[in-house]
C-alpha cells in the first residue's frame, strides 16, 4: 500500500506491506532508529512516538498504514536547530537514563504529558509514565527529569 507520513516535518511516501508496523517503518524506511522495539506486546513503551502532536502512541502496536496522512514526532524531532529540548537537557542533567534504550520513549510520553499538564505532580508524572518500562533507573531520576523540564518549559513557553 502506498502511504504518506510526515515524520518530524519531513514527508515520507512509501509503498509498504499492510502488516508493516509503524515502529519498523520509522526505523527501517525512514532510518530513524531512535525509536526502539523491546517487547512485541505493547508493554514496554520503548517504541513510543507522538501522533499528530497530541497523543503518545506505541508504534509497535500501530500499523504503518494507520499513520497514512498523519504527523509523527520521534525523538529525533525533539532538538531544534542543534539546541536540546528541555526534556533532553533535563534527562541529561538529572541522570534520567543509564543504558538509554527506554529514554526516547520516556521523553516522547513526557512531551505529551507536559503539553496537557504543564505542572504535573509527582503522582501524575508516575501515572503518565506507567506505560513506559525502565530496567536501569528505578524511575526516581526520570521523575526528577520531567519535573525539571516542566519548570524549564514554564519559564520559556516558546520552547514547546
Amino acid at each position: 500500500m502506498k502511504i504518506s507520513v510526515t515524520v518530524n516535518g519531513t514527508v515520507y511516501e512509501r509503498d509498504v506491506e499492510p502488516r508493516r508496523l509503524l515502529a519498523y517503518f520509522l526505523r527501517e524506511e525512514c532510518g530513524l532508529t531512535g525509536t526502539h522495539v523491546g517487547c512485541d506486546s505493547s508493554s514496554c513503551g520503548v517504541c513510543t512516538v507522538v501522533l499528530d502532536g497530541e497523543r503518545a502512541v506505541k508504534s509497535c502496536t500501530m500499523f504503518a498504514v494507520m499513520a497514512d496522512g498523519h504527523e509523527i514526532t520521534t525523538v529525533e524531532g525533539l532538538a531544534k536547530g542543534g539546541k536540546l529540548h528541555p526534556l533532553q537537557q533535563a534527562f541529561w542533567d538529572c541522570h534520567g537514563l543509564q543504558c538509554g534504550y527506554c529514554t526516547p520513549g520516556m521523553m516522547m510520553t513526557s512531551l505529551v504529558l507536559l503539553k496537557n499538564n504543564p505542572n504535573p505532580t509527582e503522582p501524575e508524572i508516575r501515572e503518565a509514565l506507567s506505560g513506559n518500562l525502565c530496567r536501569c533507573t528505578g524511575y526516581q531520576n526520570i521523575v526528577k527529569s520531567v519535573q525539571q523540564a516542566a519548570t524549564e518549559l514554564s519559564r520559556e513557553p516558546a520552547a514547546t
Partner: protein
Amino acid sequence: MAIDTPERHSMGQSMKRKEDPRFIRGAGRYLDDIVLPNMLYLALVHSPYPHAKINKIDKTAALAVPGVKAVLTGEDLVAASLGWIPTFHGYDKQMVLAVGKAVFQYQEVAGVVATSREAAFDGADLVDVDYEPLPPVIDPFEAMKDQQIIRDDRENKTNHIYHWEVGKRDETDAALAASAVHIDEMMEFQRCHPVPLEPCGCISDMNGGTGRLTIYMTSQAPHAHRTVVSLVTGIPEDKIHIVSPDLGGGFGNKVPVYPGYVVATVASVVLGQPVKWVENRTENLTTTGFARDYHMRVEIGATEDGKITALKVKTVADHGAFDAAADPTKYPAGLFGIVTGSYDFPVAFTELDAYFTNKAPGGVAYRCSFRVTEASYAIERGMDMLAAKLGMDPAELRLKNFVRKDQFPYPSPLGFVYDSGDYHLTLQKALDKVGYQELRKEQAEKRKRGELMGIGISTFTEAVGAGPSKHFDIMGIKMFDSAEIRIHPTGSGIIRAGTKSQGQGHETTWAQIVAEELGLDAQDLMVEEGDTDTAPYGLGTYASRSTPVAGGAIALAARKIRERAKKIAAHVLEASEDDIEWENYKFQVAGVPGKSITMKEIAFAAYTNPAPGTEPGLEATFYYDPPNLTFPHGAYIAVVDVDAETGFTKVRSFLAIDDCGTVINPMIVQGQIHGGLTEGFAIAFMQEIRFDEGGNHLNTNFTEYLVPTSLETPHWDTDSTCTPSPHHPIGAKGVGESPNVGSPAAFVNAVMDALSPLGIKHIDMPLTRAKVWNAIQASKAPS
C-alpha cells in the same frame, strides 16, 4: 598553560555522563540499528514441547516462501561440526539446534534465513517438525529420582550434574547439634530472568574477500566471545572481529553464547552474506539466560543469648537441560561461599547438588556476582528467622554477631578473606536514619489495632570483582582485565578497556579515574570499549567486576604514564628526576613552586621535545590481576504496611546505606543503587519464571513476567559509608549489584515481620498479593 580546576571532573565528582548526548538524541547505536548491505535475517523455530523426540523435519514448505534462502537444522549443524558447543565453564555441552530430541519448551529446533525479517518468520512458521512427546521432568526433586533421564547423550545416565561443598561438615553438624537454639528452614530463590529492555542479537558477517568474520553482538564480554568462537569453529582468532555496540541493558543476560549467534554465523559462512538475528521478548524470556532457581535448606545454631555458633546450607540447584550456568571454572556454585555473610560464624559448611530438568538452560549472574544473591538471601532470611525464634530484635542479633572492624582482613570459614568493612557503623547509621526505635513503637501500637506493619533489615556482604587469576578463570582464561591509555600531543586522549558498559557509565567513570591520576580534564578523555580489534584483552562487564578489576588496570596504566611523564618533566624543567614531585595535579621542582609543568604541557613535549634516551610518545597498557576480590557491604531497611484484607504490600519507605569503598562518581553510584533496588523489588514481589506440570512456560511476555512500572516502584533513600578496599589501586569495590543482592531479603523480612503476629514464618518469593492473602487466610483457618 594552567589546568582549570583539576578536581572538577575527577574522582568523587558527580560529573554528568559523557555518553548521554547521543542517547537523548536517539542517536545511540544498538545492535538492531545496524544494517549492512545484502543483509539477511534469521528467525528460529522453537519446540512446543518440553521433552520430545524429533522424528523428522521437513523444510520444503519453508523453502518455498519467497525470500527464504536457507533452512538449517541440528543435523546440518552436526555436519558442520557445530551441533554442540561447550557450556560456559566447559563441564557440559549444549545443543545449538535440537539434535534427536528437544529437551525444553521453546528450544531452538531450526533456523530460517531470508531476505527480510517478515519472510524469515513466514518461513519459520512453515518448518514442519514431527515431534513424539516424552514425559517431561520439571521439578528438580523429581529429577533426582532418575525415573526419566533427560540427557541420554551423556555417559552417566543420571539427572544429577555435580556435587559441590566447602567448609567443615562434621564440625558444623556437631556445633549445630550442641546449639541451644537452632533454626532449620527451607527457602527458595525462584527462577527469574534479567530481561534487559533490549533483547539479545547479532549480525554475523563473513567477508569472503578478507576471510574475516565480523560479529556485531550484544555482548557483555566481547573478547571472551572472540576466543570462544575461535576455539569452537577453528577460525583463527585474528580472523574474528567482535563488536559490541551500545547495549540496552544486560544484567547478565548478555554473557553466554546463545544458539542464535551460532546459527547466524554458520548461515553467514555458508551463504556469504551478513545475517542478522534479534530475539523477540518471548524468545528472550523462554530461551536465553534465566537466573537463580536455588532451593536452599538453611540451618543456624546459636546460644540462648543469641551468639551464633554454626551455619549449614544445603542447596538443590535446578540448571535446566544443559549445565550452562555462568560461573568461573573452579566455582560451579559461583561465590555461594559468601553465605556466612557479615557474621562471624565459628564454623560453617555448605553443599550443593545440581540437577537437569526439562527447562531452559542458564543460571546467569543476574545483576549478581555469581550466586552471591542467593547466598545473601539465605543468610539474611536465616538471621531474621533466628531472631524470631530467639525473641530477639533482628538489629540487635546482627550487631551482636557482625564481624568486627578490627577483624579485617577477615578470613571467613568458607574460604574468603574479606578486605575491609565496618558493619556496626553502617547498620547503626541506617537505624539512626530511619528512627528505628520510633518505628518499633509505632509498630507495637499498630499491632494492638490489628494492623500489619513490618520492618525488614538486610545487612549483606558481597564478594565481587572476579578475579584473581590464581582462583578465577572461564574456560581456562584467567579473569584479569586490562586498560590502554594514549595521550595525544594536545593533551586529550583515549582510554580503552576490556570491559563493556551496558548503562553503567564507563565512558564517564573511566575518564574520571584517568583525569584524577593525570590532572587532565575528563571531558578530553574519550573511552572506547567493546571492539576486539582495538581494545586490550579483558573478560568484560558482569559480576560487578568492571571497577574492581578494569578500574584497577586503568588507574595503574595512568600511573605508568605519570612515571614516564616525570622523566619528560625533568627534561623540560632541566632538573634531576629525583627533584621532581607530583603536586596539585602537576609536576614541580621540589622547593621551587614556580617551576612546574602540567600534564597537558608534558603531552606536547612527549611528541615535540622527548627526553633524550627515553621512548617518545605518551601511552601505556596495563593488565591488572587483582590480589583479592573486593567485599562491598550495606545495611538496608524496608518499612512496609500489609493490607490484611487484600494481601497488598505497600513499601512505605526504603533506606539503603551502601559501602562500596572509594566512589568515582556519586551520581552514577546512586543511579546504580536506584536501579538495583528496583530489580530487587521486582524479584521480591512480582517476578518468577513458572512452569505448569506439563512443562509449559507460563511467563512468556511482559504481561505475564512483570517489570515494575513507575507506579509500583517505591521511593528510594540512599546514603553511604566508606571503607576503601586496601588492595585496590583507588580503593573502589564495585556497586552495581549490591542493591539487587541486598534488597530481596530486606523486603521479605519486612513482610514476614508484618505477618508475624499471625504466626506466619515464611513465604517464598515473589510475595504477590495472592500468596500473601492466601497465607493470611490460612493463618485464620481453624487448625
